[in-house]
């Protein structure tokens, strides 16, 4: 097993990534990535497609297993590398249950009603009773403005509604951290706002979050820190407003110039 104290770290660090490397076969995707997010911090990850930002995000909840390095979320740490065995299914599941994730394609369970989708984690993973889980789920649906859709099936919802259900489903596990993997990229433009509003609300409530996004204005306004990645490296990292409005690195400037033409 790989859970162990990583090294002395400030109490307030919620996410710590140290020297993470990942290759798919011979293709390196992440090349020695280190970063950290304090409790309540919001980090936005931007970069061109293929830069490794989604892979990095998936490494944070171990949907993708790093080849080397350490991932720590709250008090759970996992270390990877030649000297460490592959974590077992049970340990992976325990680690992931503390991290909520929202996907580009929603990935709601189509055979379950909206409220059942939200109840699924608490019931199956945490062993909560149905009544308790239902109350929790209805409360969360209320929070994302979808209480009246509780008994609908996902195929009856718009993309924005689906994504808000997906956020409620992740929140039902009372995660320490929320990850958003291009959560608005599959949405029609007029539906983006309703999802971003929910994310903004979570930020104001002090949820620790990592956002992989193409919404540059959002990355600037909601995140405290912004990381620009390219080719598996962190190119630039700093306060979100500074990185996006006044980037220091040529690669960051080149990438952001595509967006400045549009309204940022």
């Amino acid at each position, binding site marked *: 097993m790989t859970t162990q104290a990583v090294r002395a770290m400030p109490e307030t660090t919620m996410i710590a990534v140290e020297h993470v490397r990942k290759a798919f076969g011979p293709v390196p995707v992440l090349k020695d990535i280190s970063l950290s997010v304090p409790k309540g911090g919001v980090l936005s990850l931007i970069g061109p497609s293929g830069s490794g930002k989604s892979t990095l995000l998936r490494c944070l909840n171990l949907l993708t297993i790093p080849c080397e390095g350490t991932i720590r979320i709250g008090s759970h740490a996992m270390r990877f590398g030649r000297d460490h065995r592959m974590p077992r299914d049970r340990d992976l599941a325990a680690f992931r249950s*503390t*991290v909520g994730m929202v996907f580009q394609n929603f*990935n709601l369970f189509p055979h379950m009603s909206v409220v059942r989708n939200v109840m699924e984690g608490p019931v199956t993973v945490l062993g909560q009773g149905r009544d308790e889980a239902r109350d929790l789920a209805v409360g969360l649906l209320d929070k994302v403005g979808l209480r009246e859709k509780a008994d609908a099936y996902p195929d009856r919802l718009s993309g924005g509604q689906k994504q808000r259900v997906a956020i409620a489903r992740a929140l039902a596990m009372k995660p320490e951290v929320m990850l958003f993997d291009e959560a608005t990229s599959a949405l029609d433009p007029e539906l983006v706002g309703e999802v971003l509003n929910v994310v903004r609300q979570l930020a104001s409530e002090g949820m620790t979050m990592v956002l992989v996004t193409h919404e540059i204005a959002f990355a600037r306004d909601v995140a405290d820190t912004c990381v620009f990645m390219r080719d598996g490296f962190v190119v630039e990292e700093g306060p979100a407003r500074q990185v996006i409005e006044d980037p220091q690195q040529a690669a960051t400037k080149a990438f952001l110039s595509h967006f400045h033409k549009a309204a940022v």
Partner: protein
Amino acid sequence: MNYEWDFSFLLQYKGLIAIGALYTIGFTIVTAIAGFVVGGLIAVARLANARVVTIPLLAFIEIFRCTPVLVQLVWIYYALPIVIGVELKPATAAFIALTLYGASFFAEIIRGGIASIDTGQWDAGRALGMRRAALMRRVVLPQALKRMIPPLVNQVVLQLKNTSLLSVLAVPDLLYQGQLITSATYKPLEVYTMIAIIYFIILFPLTTLAHGLERRLAR
């Protein structure tokens, strides 16, 4: 050509025919269930992605899928006892052959159904902290089973038709009884027509039910 059709003589054989129908239906049900269970185990084992396991299973599937059931019945009844040194009753040999033959098809139907579920569903379940077995049971199988229904019913229909081969081992299924009646009456046209009608009466409701289910689950 004028042939006098006369089915009335069949009434006196109704006992034999009833036994035959019971054997046919019974063998279908038992071997379909056993084949589904064995096929399901094979499918799950194949998903494990360990070559030590998957290669022998693939070999098993292909051998049973790509050779005639008739030959498999003969192998298992005549050749297997020589290899393992145990005498098999015809019904036992027939059960083994039809179960394994069915299992080889069921395994592919089930594996295909599971593999057809979007990887995003696995991601979503894992991200919630679900373990593999729970994910399979709660998320993947309920969706996969829906997609499997049409090919599964199809396979059960074939399974029933294949029981007609049991007559080679003198298992008294419908066809075997028909052969007995034919040899006593010399009226094969009536006898075999009746057998076809009984098959149809058994199978048509089943395929109709499958269509209905498919429509209802398509939602």
